[in-house]
């Protein structure tokens, strides 16, 4: 996958979260914490696996904090930094 800009990464993540949570993509808000969207441990790991497969980044043990996962925007930003 070629280099993506921040907006593209955000959209990819939002689409995947919509699939994981079985909700309409329009209902995924990019500015709220992931746990407030209804993501639990299992769906979060599904998201991490998706990130590894899509962006080739292993986030499980990467030492990212709650702040990095705070919103889709902050997660997209961390992915962008790590993939550089």
């Amino acid at each position: 996958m070629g280099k993506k800009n921040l907006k593209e990464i955000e959209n990819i993540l939002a689409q995947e979260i919509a699939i994981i949570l079985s909700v309409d993509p329009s209902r995924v808000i990019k500015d709220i914490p992931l746990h407030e969207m209804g993501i639990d441990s299992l769906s979060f790991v599904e998201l991490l696996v998706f990130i590894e497969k899509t962006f080739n980044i292993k986030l499980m043990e990467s030492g990212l904090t709650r702040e990095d996962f705070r919103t889709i925007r902050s997660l997209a930003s961390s992915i962008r930094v790590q993939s550089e």
Partner: protein
Amino acid sequence: MSKINFSRKKRYLSGIDWIIHALDYITKKAIGTGNTSQIVLELEGSLQEDKFRTCLDSLIKKYPVLYGRPSRNYNLAPYWKIFSKRQSRLLPVKVYHLEYINHTNIFKLLEQKANLKFINEQEHLFFHLIHAENKTYVAMTFDHRLFDALGAEAFLEMLQNEWKNKDNSFCDKNIIVPAESAHLCNWRRKFIAGQQANRAFLKMSKNAPPRVLPLPASLNNLGFRFKVIPFDKYQTDLILENAYKDAGYLMLMPYVLASAIWVIHRLFSKRNIKSGDYVVPVSIDMRPTDKVQQEVFFNHVSFLFFIIRSDEAEHFPFLIKSIKQQLYDQVKSGLPSNFQEASLLMRILPLPILSNIMRLYLKGQIASFSFSNVGEGAYRSSNFMGKKILNIFHMPRVPVPPGLGIFFHQFQNKLNVVLSFLEGILSDKEANELIHTLQSRLGEK
């Protein structure tokens, strides 16, 4: 390709349904009563019995599936035989009035009801209402062959809808239509999934049998005992914060599973039981979140399987790391969906043979103990028939073997933990100690 024709009288069972039937068979063989569970609503105020019965009678008349029983088709696919609506009957509801709230007495009564047998192969559900001062406990005892835990909660939500005169018909159509993969077809895909699931089981069986508590010499008619610990909002937030600090963001499930294994390991060490590794199946719901209210009946779960070496079990940070890694690897390899797919092949086997095969990998055992994934329940209303819900908790009877389980459940952002154990495998002192140690390990005490 063998195509299954739809019939209003048949609901073809999925592979997971058939596995649950096998667990029911194993448990009935061992202790006489099958794989049943009980869900309890603790309500503020006195629930109107008449209204409850009216709503229940009205609801069950629409769902003859509640009186079905397993059968097998000429094409070998097992199904749930659904009788006509005319044959439906009223569900048993027994009412108790206690003079004052004595938690020990109420709990003993609930425990006793959770252990009752169904009277025949067509009874899968009954209710008990316990009135005590200004509270009502609604206990629904159910057959796991008909509902999984979330399905049972969703059924209570249907009852609540009935009370509110809301339409429940959205769930009706899914009763008779089997999942696409329930057809006896796509053999190649099922075999590949089976190959992958088999590899996981072979890995699990390396050091078989797993570490288990010895069952009592005589099992006939033994019941289950329960310890239920409800956590308030403050305690739940503390546990969530500890899970974040020790396991990471959104890692509550690995954290509570690690805590459960850690305390079970202490128990085994005290008993001087040293052989084998810990093998823990974790049931997870496979329904998309928005489908729970439409797929109420039967089983929609799959399993993750965790293997913990005994020397890993006493080091909490290692334990968490190992569980997180196994969780990641299993999700990445698609084990839950592979297991679901592969189990479809098992439906060809009669229950006595399937139950033997299930115990083959782990040399006669099934697991060290059972555990279920933490998640918000399917009952979403804050009240039940006009009464505020103070708590919802489950009292699941664990299949025997192993006869031991730890279950976490969340209702309105508050956690409950339930220890379920077969009479005689733990003393009351051990059970209390286990639950207190678990509270400390979770950082709540």
